[in-house]
Every structure is written in structure tokens, then in C-alpha cells.
């Protein structure tokens, strides 16, 4: 405990913090510009100079560490004079264009000049001018206004770890530039924009469209894009989102955002949004009234149910809808339509992998705190690039590296390449072997802990000779041993599992290996999640085999609990998975389908087969905010309210339940509300006044959510299992499937690219993200480019056994020489059209590996 005296006031401190922090803790304001709480100390602007007794020179409060007995003065005549002088220096070359500058009103320089008074304008020379840079579509730089505080650079390099901008030149010529000097080639996190104290780096999205003080409301909600669930603040003017900003102190993302979260909000106001229900008459959509549309849907569903039984109807839920929407969705399917045929796109990886992991490692094994990653001493990354799939989680891995932790990657992980990773890059199709090799070697150095005998028995079965493995995988012995040494020496390790692993050949066996490795090193598992409420929809029971709260539908006692609550009977057999639904629709067994906020045509393999299957249905209703490719096949399309237009909750990959809030008004109904209306028309009363009422029911029926209320959630720490009871203690047999090892040869194979700037197709409705990443491309390695005489921008036809696409070429040396990478984000250019549905028999995840690709130059597009 130390005591410092600031302006005559004794301040007690737990530990020796900076004088600035000490002052702030006591409510004493010291002016600052280069200081920012998220960033490394700098001490450059000199505004925070203070007087300290017994120190001859003035000291910067932002860097000086307080010591016991220190006597400090922060506001004296002398200091006011000094600050005036410094502000004068800052202004001599600063344009006085506040009336024109978008920053006016929240400009830290402007506020300080206001407080300490302007100088008399003693500078007679011409100001140094730098033209405004509008080369970039998203970020506008106005370097004439830059005060060289370097907050942006410290953010970009030190916190975001993107290192895309730097101070160039020195002295009075210093300013900030991306590498090209004009357009950015960066992650577009926009965190530089957040920290710029003046109007030097700003978002172009709201350029000259509003002034900070015109924002009446700051609505705190959750980002719609991925499973991390960042807190975002929506600044709204006249029902238009003007800007999205993070909040320092928020639990998940603490002041940081990624490109999608910050710049991807424009889909909300997109002109292509559906406005009225559509009914297809003679093959063409006609606008209809809600009454008409809803009664039509109710009648047709009733026909199907009554005519063919609940087994003939199915529903697809949405990882972009709220828990409340999804809860009502499954309740509607089970109670009104009498079916367990409920599933979602989570089936393409996340859901199956999670059940597999939980069977071995226990319920909630993947529910680990994201921020905890940065405190690990080793992070092992498998299955792709976490910095693009879950960017804010990726930052925690970078931060771990920054704190001296070891990053180990299986395969090349682009977003971590500057973080000193120990990489093992197995040859194509030898990842399984490599994981076996790692496990085998670990087994030799580590003792099996004995806590999971069933699992250990399985692990003991593994018997291979690691020397051969290393050779076959094409990794050097030195690298392998170095990797292993770090892994086995870890005290607090974490393992990140991405979808590339889950969607590969023998994925359940690979998962088994990774879990075994994790078991031996006693680590935590992070399962990457691509959609905002993927976890929530599983918890809500939108799976064919479980009820809300992850209660298996097959267990009578669990079923009974819901049957009592809902006064109904629930079929005792698990329903169809999303893939089985497509098969059944194709074969004619399934008659009607309700799809809420999902585009299976796009997000499931074999788009052509899905299309044929959906066309084969007697009745298809699609509820969405845009008219998707799937929607176009529907008999009825129902427009719903989207993110930022409704209340509710999301559950992130940590199982943190967070509030989603309504920020803008739009005519229409929430998904749950539409479903309730349909239910009502089918004679079942779903009487919910609002989302909170639904949530209250959830917390009544779901043991995972017991006693949880919106009030509790507000506090920010509603983590699963909330006062929950432990779930099934029974461990089922560990079954995994190894699959056949392919021989790569010199053929080309399909790879799925998961770009940072897109997530599903939603992001392509946000113009900023589209500007950054405008179209689907086939990304190939320089060697492939050379072999096929292709240069960036050339058109190629990419053909597989399942289909064919024509795409422009991009060349990237991070791409494996045998892969052709394609994104799955652009309508009409979906990669899943090239993928046949072959699944891992255990996780049911489709296999997107080993799909041969034929490449040819294409002049026709």
C-alpha cells in the first residue's frame, strides 16, 4: 500500500500505478492525448506534464510510476502555461477545419483547446499540408490533422497485431500510412479509427452524414456475425445505424472489434430487404397481406401434418436468430406439428463436433472463456485460421504470443504468421498421421492421468512408429521435436479446433486424436463457431435429438418434463438431420418444410440436389430478411425483423448468454411472433407478449437456464450452465472413423476459404465489406498460377464431380500448392455447389477435403 499526494489530496494505492492512473482513480483529471488505456505507454504528447516535488523536471503523469510519499501537482499556473504552449505547437500545423471535420464534437484536441485556451496565432508560416486520402473505400485518412500520437499504430501493431499501418518518415514529416501509402491492405478492424483522438483516421461509412452530438441513443447489443459475441454499441439517428463502436470494459471484446462487427452493419438498411409477405402464384411471387400469408401457411402445414403425420414435416432453424426465436421454432415444430425433424446448419460441423467432444470430455467441455486464451502458455491451433473465423478470439491468441506464450499450429495459419508460431505443415492428406505421431510421442513422455478410463483404453490402442510418420508427413524431425517439446512442457495449454479439421476426411478420428492430446497435456478446448447463435440454437433444442437444455429426446424422463410443461406429447424418436431432410424431400417422404433464417441451398453440399429436393416438396415456407436462393423456391416467403430490430438473447461459444437489443424501428414481426401467429391459426395458443416472456419460459423449462432472467443477463456474466444441473453422466462408446488416406499425387483439390470479411451471405449485403472483398474468387498458389499460366483476375472454370463455377483468379503464396480455395459467401457462386455430400459417419459433418478439382482458363465469364 502506498500513498501519494495529488493536489493536496492523499491517495492510497494498492500497487504502484502511474500518476495518471492514480489521479484518475481519485477523480482528478489530467489532460492527455497520446495516452490510451488500451495501449502501451508512450509519453509523447507531453500534455500530461505535472509538477512533482523533489524532481527538477516536469514529469509526464502517463509514464511516471507513483512512489510512496510522492507529492504531485496537476493544475498550476505554470502547468496551464505549459499546456497552452503544447497545444499551440499542436495547432501550428493543424488545419482549423473543425466546422468541416466529422470529428468535431468528440475531438480530444478540440476539447483541450477549449479548456486551456487557444494561443494568439503567432505562427506566420504556411501550414504543412497533406492531402486527404480517399483511396480506401472504408477508411479515410486526413494526415494534415494527425498529431503523431501514434495511438493508431500502437493499436494496429501492439493490440490488433495486424501491423498494417506504421509511422513513416520522422520529425515533423511523420505521419501514418498503410504499406501502399493509399489503400489499406489490412484486416479492416477499424480499431485505429476507435483510438484516433482527432479527425485524422475516420470511417467513410458515415462521412459527413451526422455529427456526434446528433446521436441520441447508444444501444448496446451483440454483434450479429460470429460465435464470439462481441458487445457493440449502435449509434442511431432517425432509425438508421450511423456507426458501430465497441466499448472498453465489455467482457468479451473489451474495446476491440473486427471488420464485420464494425463495418458490416449496413445490411440492416439494405434496399433489398423483404418488406411484405410473398405468395407464389403460378410460379411468380405476389405481395400478400400478413393475414393471407399466415393463414395459407397454417392451412398447408395442417394439410401436411394431418395428411401424412408429423414425420412428413420438417423445420430448419437459424444460428442468426435469437434464443427466443429458436425456442419458439422448436416448440412450434414439436407442439404444433408434432415432429422432431428440426435441425440447422450447425450440423455441418459445429453441432456434431461438439457432441463428440462432450461425449469424451464431458458436458460443457468447449465452454471456455475466450479471454483466458491470452493467459495460456501454449496455444495449439488446428483446423484453420481462428483470426478470420473468430477474429476477436484470434486476438487473444496473438496476445498470448505477445506475452511470450508459444503458438503451435498444425498447418500454415496465415493470421498468426507474424507471431512466431512453431508450425508443422503436414503434406496434403497426412494430417491424421501427424496427429497420431504427436499423440504417440506425447504418450511416451506423459503419464495417462487415469481420470477417464474408457478414453484411456482407446488411447492405448494407438500404436504406430513415429519415425515413418514424420517422413510421410514431410515435416522435419527438428521441427517436430521442437513442437513436441513446447507442447509437452505446457503448464496451461489451450487447443483451438476449427472447421477445416471437422470437415476433413476422418474428422471424428482426428477429433479423437486432438482430444487425446488435450487429455495428456490437460488443456482447454476451444471449438470455433462461425455463426452468432450457433450454440444458442443447440441449447434451445433445435436439433433432431435434443430438447431445450440439451436434454436427449430419447430419454422418457426428459421428454416427460417438456410434455408436462407444454401439455403435449413429443415423438420419442429423434428426427431427421438436415441432410436427411434433404434426402427425404428428394424422395418425396417429406412433404412440407419450414425454414427460418437459413439458406440451405447455399450452406449445404450438393446445391443442385438440395434445389431439386426443395422443389419436390408440396409446400415450402421460408422466413427471412432477404429473398435468398432458398427463398426463391418457396411457396410463401415471410419477411422477418432482423438483428438490431428486435429484443432477445444470443449465446456465444463460451455459453455466455447476452442481450440483443432493438435499436431501429421497422414494420414487421419478429421470427417468434410470426411463428406464434401461424400457431394461433393452427389452433394452438402461443401467447407471448414479448421476448422476455419467452425467455422466462426457457428458464423455467431448460435446466441449463434455470432461474436466469433478463435482469441477471444485464450484469454480463450469464454463463452456461447457469445454476444448471449436470447432464447425462453416461458416456457412450467412443466411436470414431478414420477414413482412407488419399494419395495426393499432382492433382488439385478444393479448399474452402473462410475470409475475414465475410460470414455467410449476410455480409455481402453490407456495402463496406463488399468494397473490401467484392466477389468470389478462386485463390491459388503462385506455382499453380504458373502451371496454368494464370494471373490474378483471369477467369477460370473450376469443376468437380458435383458441379462447376466460373471465377476470377487470385494468387496467394499462403495457399497450398495443391489447393484451389473458394469462398462460400457470394450468391450464385457458392462453393457448396462443388461439393458432394460425403459425411463423417460419426459427426455427420460433410467432408470438404480430397475433392478433386479440374481447372481451366475460362474466357466466357
Amino acid at each position: 500500500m502506498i500513498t501519494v499526494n495529488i493536489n493536496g489530496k492523499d491517495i492510497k494505492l494498492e500497487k504502484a500505478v502511474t500518476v495518471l492512473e492514480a489521479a484518475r482513480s481519485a477523480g482528478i483529471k489530467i489532460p492527455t492525448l497520446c495516452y490510451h488505456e488500451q495501449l502501451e505507454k508512450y509519453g509523447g504528447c507531453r500534455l500530461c506534464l505535472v509538477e512533482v516535488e523533489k524532481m527538477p523536471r516536469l514529469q509526464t503523469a502517463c509514464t511516471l510510476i507513483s512512489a510512496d510519499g510522492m507529492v504531485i501537482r496537476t493544475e498550476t499556473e505554470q502547468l496551464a502555461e505549459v499546456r497552452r504552449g503544447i497545444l499551440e505547437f499542436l495547432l501550428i500545423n493543424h488545419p482549423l477545419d473543425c466546422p468541416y471535420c466529422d470529428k468535431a464534437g468528440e475531438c480530444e484536441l478540440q476539447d483541450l483547446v477549449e479548456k486551456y485556451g487557444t494561443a494568439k496565432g503567432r505562427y506566420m508560416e504556411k501550414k504543412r499540408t497533406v492531402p486527404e486520402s480517399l483511396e480506401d473505400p472504408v477508411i479515410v485518412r486526413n494526415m494534415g490533422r494527425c498529431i503523431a500520437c501514434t495511438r493508431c499504430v500502437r493499436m494496429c501493431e501492439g493490440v490488433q497485431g495486424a501491423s498494417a499501418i506504421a509511422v513513416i518518415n520522422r520529425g515533423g514529416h511523420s505521419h501514418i500510412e498503410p504499406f501502399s501509402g493509399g489503400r489499406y491492405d489490412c484486416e479492416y478492424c477499424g480499431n485505429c479509427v476507435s483510438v484516433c483522438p482527432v479527425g485524422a483516421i475516420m470511417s467513410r461509412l458515415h462521412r459527413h452524414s451526422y455529427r456526434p452530438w446528433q446521436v441520441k441513443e447508444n444501444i448496446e447489443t451483440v454483434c450479429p456475425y460470429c460465435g464470439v459475441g462481441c458487445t457493440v454499441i449502435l449509434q442511431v439517428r432517425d432509425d438508421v445505424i450511423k456507426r458501430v463502436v465497441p466499448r472498453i470494459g465489455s467482457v468479451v471484446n473489451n474495446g476491440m472489434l473486427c471488420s464485420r462487427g464494425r463495418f458490416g452493419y449496413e445490411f440492416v438498411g439494405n434496399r433489398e430487404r423483404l418488406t411484405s409477405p410473398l405468395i407464389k402464384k403460378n410460379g411468380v411471387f405476389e405481395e400478400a397481406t400478413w393475414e393471407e400469408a399466415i393463414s395459407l401457411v397454417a392451412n398447408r402445414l395442417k394439410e401436411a401434418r394431418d395428411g401424412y403425420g408429423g414425420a412428413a414435416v420438417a423445420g430448419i432453424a437459424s444460428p442468426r436468430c435469437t434464443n427466443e426465436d429458436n425456442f419458439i421454432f422448436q416448440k412450434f415444430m414439436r407442439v404444433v406439428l408434432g415432429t422432431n425433424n428440426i435441425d440447422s446448419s450447425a450440423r455441418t460441423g459445429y453441432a456434431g463436433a461438439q457432441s463428440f467432444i462432450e461425449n469424451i470430455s464431458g458436458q460443457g467441455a468447449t465452454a471456455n472463456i475466450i479471454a483466458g486464451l491470452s493467459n495460456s502458455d501454449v496455444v495449439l491451433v488446428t483446423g484453420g485460421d481462428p483470426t478470420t473465423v473468430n477474429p476477436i478470439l484470434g486476438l487473444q491468441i496473438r496476445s498470448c504470443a505477445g506475452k511470450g506464450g508459444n503458438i503451435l499450429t498444425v498447418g500454415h495459419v496465415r493470421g498468426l504468421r507474424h507471431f512466431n508460431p512453431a508450425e508443422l505443415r503436414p503434406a496434403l492428406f497426412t494430417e491424421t498421421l501427424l496427429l497420431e505421431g504427436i499423440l504417440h510421442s506425447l504418450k511416451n513422455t506423459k503419464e495417462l492421468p487415469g481420470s477417464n478410463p474408457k478414453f484411456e483404453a482407446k488411447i492405448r490402442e494407438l500404436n504406430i512408429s513415429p519415425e515413418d510418420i514424420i517422413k510421410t508427413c514431410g515435416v522435419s524431425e527438428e521441427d517436430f521435436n521442437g513442437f513436441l517439446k513446447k507442447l509437452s512442457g505446457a503448464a496451461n495449454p489451450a487447443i483451438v479446433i476449427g472447421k477445416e479439421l471437422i470437415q476433413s476426411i476422418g474428422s471424428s478420428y482426428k477429433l479423437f486424436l486432438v482430444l487425446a492430446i488435450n487429455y495428456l497435456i490437460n488443456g482447454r478446448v476451444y471449438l470455433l463457431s462461425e455463426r452468432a447463435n450457433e450454440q444458442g440454437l443447440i441449447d434451445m433444442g433445435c436439433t433432431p435429438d435434443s430438447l431445450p437444455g440439451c436434454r436427449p429426446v430419447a430419454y422418457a424422463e426428459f421428454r416427460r418434463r417438456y410434455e408436462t410443461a407444454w401439455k403435449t406429447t413429443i415423438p420419442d424418436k429423434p428426427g431427421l438431420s438436415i441432410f436427411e431432410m434433404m434426402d427425404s424431400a428428394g424422395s418425396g417422404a417429406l412433404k412440407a418444410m419450414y425454414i427460418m433464417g437459413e439458406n440451405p441451398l447455399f450452406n449445404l453440399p450438393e446445391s443442385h440436389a438440395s434445389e431439386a429436393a426443395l422443389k419436390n416438396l408440396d409446400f415450402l415456407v421460408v422466413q427471412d430478411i432477404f429473398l435468398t436462393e432458398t427463398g426463391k423456391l418457396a411457396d410463401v416467403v415471410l419477411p422477418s425483423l432482423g438483428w438490431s430490430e428486435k429484443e432477445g438473447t444470443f449465446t456465444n461459444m463460451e455459453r455466455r448468454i447476452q442481450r440483443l437489443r432493438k435499436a431501429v424501428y421497422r414494420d414487421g414481426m419478429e421470427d417468434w411472433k410470426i411463428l406464434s401467429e401461424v400457431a394461433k391459426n393452427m389452433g394452438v395458443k402461443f401467447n407471448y407478449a414479448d421476448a422476455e416472456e419467452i425467455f422466462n419460459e426457457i428458464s423455467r423449462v431448460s435446466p441449463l437456464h434455470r432461474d436466469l432472467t433478463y435482469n441477471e443477463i444485464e450484469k454480463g456474466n450469464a454463463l452456461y450452465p447457469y445454476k444448471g444441473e449436470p447432464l447425462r453422466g453416461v458416456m457412450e462408446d467412443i466411436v470414431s472413423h478414420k477414413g482412407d488416406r488419399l494419395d495426393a499425387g499432382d492433382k488439385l483439390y478444393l479448399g474452402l476459404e473462410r475470409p475475414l470479411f465475410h460470414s455467410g451471405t449476410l455480409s455481402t449485403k453490407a456495402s463496406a465489406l463488399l468494397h473490401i472483398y467484392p466477389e468470389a474468387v478462386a485463390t491459388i498458389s503462385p506455382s499453380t498460377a504458373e502451371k496454368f499460366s494464370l494471373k490474378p483476375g483471369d477467369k477460370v472454370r473450376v469443376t468437380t464431380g458435383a458441379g462447376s463455377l466460373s471465377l476470377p483468379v487470385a494468387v496467394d503464396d499462403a495457399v497450398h500448392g495443391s489447393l484451389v480455395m473458394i469462398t462460400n459467401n457470394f450468391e450464385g457462386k457458392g462453393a457448396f455447389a462443388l461439393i458432394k455430400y460425403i459425411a463423417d459417419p460419426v459427426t455427420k459433418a460433410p467432408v470438404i477435403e480430397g475433392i478433386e478439382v479440374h481447372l481451366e482458363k475460362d474466357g466466357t465469364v
Partner: protein
Amino acid sequence: MLSEAAIKEIEAIRAKYPTARAALLPAIYVAQREFGWLSPEAYEAVSDILGIPKAIARGVATFYAMYRHRPMGRNVVQLCTNVSCMILGAEKLVDFLKNRYSLEPGGTDPDGRFSLVIMECIGACGTAPAMLVNEDFYENLTEKYIEEILGKYK
């Protein structure tokens, strides 16, 4: 692309330091020699080989006055004009270079034979005025002596 020899040289430099980043300044020298100046390709090459983001490499390089931030003539005349040289006539030599060789400070002559860089003190004050041509020191300069010296550089 860097030559095989340059890559080897950078790798040897890298081995002298505990971090790759520390090899940045010397590696930039190598790349500059290979590419003639610090073109975007030069930065990319250094960035690739040391694993340092290219924007950072550029930010670092532009801090230093002696790197070549734009294409230069075949020979670089680096004339000191700091106080000791100035009071012994360095400014007249600047005029001389301008008149006799069409060399403006910071510029390159029309043939691309020389570029002129005005230097801060180059540590030859006792033999002022002084200059470096490429890596060679020349001291006690006079107009005549400069003519003689520059004659040697093609």
C-alpha cells in the same frame, strides 16, 4: 526477388541477433543494394525473409535518412553542409554542383549518373568541407577537387 547470395547474406546477418526483427536494418541495406532503392518489392522481399510485416519494414526504413526511398542515380554524392563544413564553404560547393553538374539537392542529374544528397555532419569536420561518394570519403573539398573526383565515377 532477392538473389540467392542476398538471401544467404540476410540469413547470415539474422544469425547474429537474438530476434529476426533486429536484422531488419542490415537486411534493408542488402535489399536496397539488390533493388537499387527501397521499392515496394524490396520491402516485400525483406518482409518475407524475416517474417516482419511489410508496413512495419517501411515505417522503420523511412525513419532513416540514408536509405534510398526513391530511385537514385548510379552514384550518390553526399555532401555535408553542417556548421563546420558550411563555414568553410560547403554552400558554394552546392551551387557549384548545381551549375556544373545540374545537380539539385535531393535530385538526380539528367543522365542518371549522380544524385545529390545534402548530409548532416558526416564526421569529417577537421577536413571540411567533405563528402561521401557512395562509400568513399573525400575531404578538404574545392571545386577543382570535386571535378577531379567526380570524373572517376561513371
